[in-house]
């Protein structure tokens, strides 16, 4: 049984437009999958179907065999923006998922501090989000999603607004954090290199459909040098060709 299975999932809006068209996809436990595509291709919508934030109009999404009927405790979600509460300290923000269900215990506090340490923010737990840099805010958001140790983590272009160096650091933090508990991950991005660097498998979306799937057979752990290896570049080029090819396919449809 796959950890996540998306079966014939479609999503349309009341005006009749189809955002997602019969998507089939499975993620095995502990795998890291990336979803790439241009803006407006439906990748965020697909992620929200998996999260339970949106309900599919056709088909089903299952997590561990159970159909998704709404946001669940087994899913962590990282948004495009850090979405931290400005009036709360870093520690309170980290503990938000816990404090919404019960009073945080000293053990939760220790876990939060350990996570902060792992993302290189130890000592900053008393700061407010406005006192942090963009990269630090993204780290807090990442740690917050993992504080309850969800078996499935969904990320929606979480690093898109960061500079290149900070983004690479955060990608490494993400891989490190997910490896700790073998978290299953679905990562949405428009950055091909990011997808190849992070994922075991990359899916290309175009116009609400999955066009292509590419396994990434690069060894783990992946370091900085991987990014400059010929294999890495070949994989990026292949994905780029797929995206361009899919694009020209659409152009042909329009012309005819």
């Amino acid at each position: 049984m796959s950890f996540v299975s998306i079966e014939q999932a479609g999503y349309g809006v009341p005006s009749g437009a189809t955002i997602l068209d019969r998507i089939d996809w499975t993620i095995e436990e502990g795998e890291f999958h990336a979803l790439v595509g241009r803006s407006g291709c439906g990748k965020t919508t697909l992620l929200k179907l998996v999260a339970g934030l949106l309900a599919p109009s056709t088909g089903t999404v299952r997590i561990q065999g159970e159909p998704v009927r709404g946001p669940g405790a087994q899913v962590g979600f990282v948004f495009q923006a850090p979405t931290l509460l400005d009036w709360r300290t870093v520690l309170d923000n980290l503990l938000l998922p816990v404090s919404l269900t019960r009073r945080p215990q000293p053990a939760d506090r220790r876990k939060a501090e350990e996570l902060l340490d792992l993302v290189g923010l130890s000592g900053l737990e008393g700061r407010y989000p406005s006192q942090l840099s963009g990269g630090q805010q993204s780290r807090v958001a990442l740690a917050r999603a993992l504080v309850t140790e969800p078996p499935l983590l969904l990320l929606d272009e979480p690093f898109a607004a960061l500079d290149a160096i900070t983004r690479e650091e955060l990608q490494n933090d993400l891989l490190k954090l997910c490896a700790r508990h073998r978290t299953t991950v679905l990562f949405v991005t428009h950055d091909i290199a990011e997808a190849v660097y992070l994922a075991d498998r990359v899916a290309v979306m175009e116009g609400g459909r999955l066009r292509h799937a590419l396994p990434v057979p690069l060894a783990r752990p992946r370091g900085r040098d991987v990014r400059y290896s010929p294999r890495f570049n070949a994989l990026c080029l292949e994905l780029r060709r797929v995206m361009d090819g899919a694009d020209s396919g659409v152009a042909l449809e329009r012309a005819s």
Partner: protein
Amino acid sequence: MVRAASALLLVLFLAGWEVYCRVAGVSALVVPLPSAVLRTLWDGLAGGYLLPHLWVTTAEMAMGLAVGCTVGFLAGVLLAEVPVLRRLFYPYILASQVVPKLALGPLFIVWFGFGMTSTVVITALICFFPLLENTMTGLQQVDPNKRELFRMLRATRLQTLLRLKIPSGLPVILAGLRVAVVLALVGAVVGEFIGGRQGLGASIIAAQGMMDSTMMFALFIVITVLGMIVYQAAAGLERWLLRRPWKG
């Protein structure tokens, strides 16, 4: 530096006023001498004549403010949270605000009698709307991403209200409070014009009856200072509630 210049401006203005009134022999009934106004003010405060009136007006303002703001805030939360109620009631609430509430003063005297109650009701009605309006706006301005975050974390409606919507709408709500505080003073003083036996507004009417312009000016000063104190108090409360270290 600018502060000193600002104070100097007041001194120059008062000196000019004093000199002009003395030289031109302006009647004290029309424009009293600043020195006479200050003496009346001092006598009124030191002799204890003004203190009960100051107390009554402050009490009316505080009660009206407390009632009006509490009801306004709760109604704002309710209308922001329940769209059906908003569509149902908002047009009437708006209409009720267009009616000049001071014009209802005589009616309130019929209902509640002369004295504090009528003034408190008028003040509360005046304070109600800014709080209602700003609470509704504040609660509806929440970042949609944060709302989605709370949905993802399976927060209850009450948790979302208390831990997301109210804290993030607080700056807008407190701006409404600042407006309400100023309006409360106007409400209390003018309410007393209509139906007060005691208070600073009632004292102005009494002084007018005795053609005592000097006392009227002294009362203006008391009211202005009272207004500045409560405004500063509201601004201080706002700063305290929104204290958050900023970047830097």
